C-alpha cells in the first residue's frame, strides 16, 4: 500500500470520527439528519476508496448502498416522519453537550489505547482504521445513550453501524461485507419503520404516546 492511499483512507476515517463528534454536537433534529447524511457520504467515500485500493469491486456496492440508503433515503424518510408526526424539533439531551463531547474524547482515547496494545506487526492501516472504527462505534452508542429522541437514537444506531461498515471495509479481503451491509440496512429500515409504524413520536421507550407509562411489565 502506498503512502498516499494510506493517507487518504486515514483521512477519510478520521473525517468519519470528526463527523461523529459533529453529530453529538447537534441540538436540532434537522441539522442532525443533515450531519448524518454527511457522515454517510464520508463513509461511502471511504468504502469506495477501500474498494479502489484493495481492488475489491464488490465494496463499490457497499459504498453505493451507503450513499443511496443512508445519505438520501433514510434522512429524507426521517425528515418526513418528523414532519408527519409533528415531533418536537429539538434534540433532548440527558447529558449536556459539553460533558458529552468530553466523554466522546475519552472514548476516542480509550479506543486508541486499546488498539495500541495490538502488537506492531499487525499492519498499521488496519490498526488505525480499527481505532477509528471503534471510535465511531463507541460514539454512536454514546449518542444512543445520551439522546432522548427516537430519531436521534436511530441516528446514533446508524452511526454505530457506519463504524461497523468502516471496519468491515477496512478489513482487507473480508468476505460477506456486502451481505452484512445489506443485512444491516434491513435492520435500520426496520427501526425506521418501527418508529413510524408505532408512532414513537418522542421517546424510544414506548410504542405509543398513549401507552406512555401505562405498561411496565409486571411492575408492582
Amino acid at each position, binding site marked *: 500500500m502506498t503512502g498516499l492511499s494510506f493517507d487518504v483512507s486515514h483521512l477519510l476515517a478520521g473525517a468519519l470520527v470528526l463527523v461523529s463528534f459533529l453529530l453529538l454536537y447537534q441540538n436540532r433534529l434537522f441539522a442532525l439528519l443533515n450531519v448524518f447524511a454527511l457522515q454517510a457520504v464520508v463513509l461511502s467515500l471511504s468504502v469506495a476508496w477501500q474498494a479502489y485500493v484493495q481492488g475489491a469491486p464488490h465494496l463499490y456496492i457497499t459504498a453505493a448502498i451507503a450513499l443511496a440508503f443512508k445519505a438520501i433515503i433514510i434522512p429524507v424518510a426521517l425528515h418526513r416522519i418528523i414532519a408527519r408526526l409533528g415531533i418536537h424539533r429539538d434534540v433532548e439531551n440527558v447529558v449536556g453537550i459539553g460533558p458529552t463531547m468530553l466523554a466522546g474524547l475519552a472514548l476516542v482515547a480509550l479506543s486508541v489505547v486499546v488498539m495500541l496494545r495490538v502488537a506492531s*506487526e499487525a499492519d498499521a492501516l488496519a490498526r488505525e482504521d*480499527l481505532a477509528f472504527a471503534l471510535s465511531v462505534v463507541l460514539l454512536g452508542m454514546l449518542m444512543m445513550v445520551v439522546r432522548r429522541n427516537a430519531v436521534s437514537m436511530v441516528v446514533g*444506531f446508524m452511526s*454505530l453501524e457506519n463504524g461497523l461498515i468502516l471496519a468491515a471495509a477496512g478489513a482487507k*479481503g473480508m468476505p460477506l461485507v456486502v451481505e452484512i451491509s445489506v443485512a444491516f440496512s434491513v435492520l435500520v429500515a426496520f427501526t425506521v419503520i418501527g418508529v413510524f409504524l408505532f408512532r414513537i413520536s418522542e421517546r424510544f421507550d*414506548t410504542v405509543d404516546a398513549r401507552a406512555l407509562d401505562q*405498561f411496565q411489565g409486571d411492575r408492582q
Partner: protein
Amino acid sequence: MTAFPFDGVTAILALPAATAALLAFLPGYRISATVNMVSAFATFVAASSFFLIKPASGVYFLVDDLNIVFIVLNTFVAFTTSVFSASYIAHELEIGRLTPTHLRFYHAMYQALLFAMNLALVANNIGLMWVAIEMATLTTVAMVGIYRTNEAIEAAWKYFILGSVGIALALFGTILVYMAARPIVGEGLDGMVWTTLIKRVPEFEPALLNLAFVFLMLGYGTKVGLAPLHAWLPDAHAEGPTPISAVLSGLLLNVALYAVLRFKLLLDANANAIAPGPLMATLGIVSLIFAAFMLYRRRDIKRLFAFSSIEHMGIIVFAFGMGGPLANFAGLLHMTMHSLTKSAIFFTVGHIAQAKGTQKIADIRGLTVSHPVLGWSLILGVFAIAGLPPLGIFTSEFLVVTSTFARAPWLAIPLVFGLILAFGALILRLQGMAFGEPSPGDKPTTASSLPIAAHLGLVLMAGLYLPPPLVAWFQHVAAMLR
C-alpha cells in the same frame, strides 16, 4: 469441495426453509400445525442421523461433536414444542387472540426460526453464523409481537432494539477476529472459517482477540440473556405466545451460548490472549444472583420463568467459564436439562394460563386441587429447574458446585448463595400456585401432556441414569472445551 453437500446438513436446513415457504401460503391452521409438526419431526430425525453419519465439514458448514449436541437437542425441543403448539394455538384461535392470518404467519415464522437456528449451529463461517443469529432474532421479534397488544409490541420493540445493538457488537467482534486472522490465515473466506481459525489461532495477535472477545461476549451475551444485558428477555418471554417462550428459553439462548462457546475455544487456544473463563464466570455469577433476586418480585408467571432462564444461563456460562472436564460436562448437561425442563415448564404454564385465563401468579392458586395433572407437572418442573433430585439439573448442579468448591472456594460461596436464593423464590411462588384453596377459573384445556411428560421423563431419567454413550459423548466434548 461442494459448498452445499446434499446430506443431513442440507436436510436440517432445507426442510425448515421449504416448510416455512409452504406454510406461508397454506391456509387452515389445523393442517399447518400438522405440517409444522411433521416437518419438525423430520428435521429431528435428520439431525439424529448425525450420530450415525457425521457429515463432512466444508467452509460453510461444520458438524463436529460439539454442535451435534446442540443440533439434536434443538431439533428435538423444536419438535416437541411444535406438538405443544398444535394443542395450544387452537385455543388461542378460539378465544380470538389470534386470527387465521396470524397463525399462517406464526407457523411460517416458526419454521424460519428453526432454519435460522439450525444454520447458526452448523455454520462453520463466523460471518454466516452472525447472519443466522440475526435472522433468528428478527423472526422471534416478529413472533413476540404477534398478539399486537401494546404490551406485546413494546416487548418486541425492546427486544428488537437491544438485540440489534447486541448483534452490532457481535459483528464488530467478528470483524476483529477476521482482522486477527488475516495476517496469518490470509485474506478471503478462510479468515472466517472456524475450523481454519482454530488451527492457526495460536499465532494470532492476542490483543485483537481479547478485544474481539469483549465484543462477542457482550454481543452474543445479550442474546444469551446474561445480566446486565438481559433486559429484553423477560418481556419477550412473557408477551409472546407460549410456544415461542419455550423456544426462546429452550433453544435460542442455547444457540447464542453456542456462539459464545465457539469463540471461547478460539481464545483458549491462544496462549497469550486473556483467558475468557474469568469473564464468563463473573457474568455467570452476576446473572445468577441478579436473576435470583429478581425472582422474588415477579407477579407474572411467564416472567418468573424467564428470569429463571437468566439464572440458569448464568449457571451454564459459569460452568463453562470454570472449565475443566467436570465443570464443562456439567455445563453441557445443565444446558441440555435446562432446555428440556424449561420448555416443559412453559408448556405447562401455557396450559395453566389458558385454564385460569391469567398469567398473574396471584390469581393462580390451588392448581393441584383444580387441575391435578397441570399442578403436579408444574411442581415436578419447578423442582427440576430448582435443582432438586432425582431430576437432571441436580446432577449438573452437584458437579458444578462440588468441582468449584474444590478448585475455587471463594467462587462457590456466591454460587451456592445464588442457588439457594433462586430456590427460595421459585418454591415460594410454586407453593402459592400449586397449593391452597383453588382460585376460580376452571376452563377445560385441550392440554397435550405428551410433550410435558416426554421432557420431564427424560429429565427424571437423566437424574438417575445417564446412558454411557451420552456420557462418553459429553465427556469428549467437555475435553474439547477444555
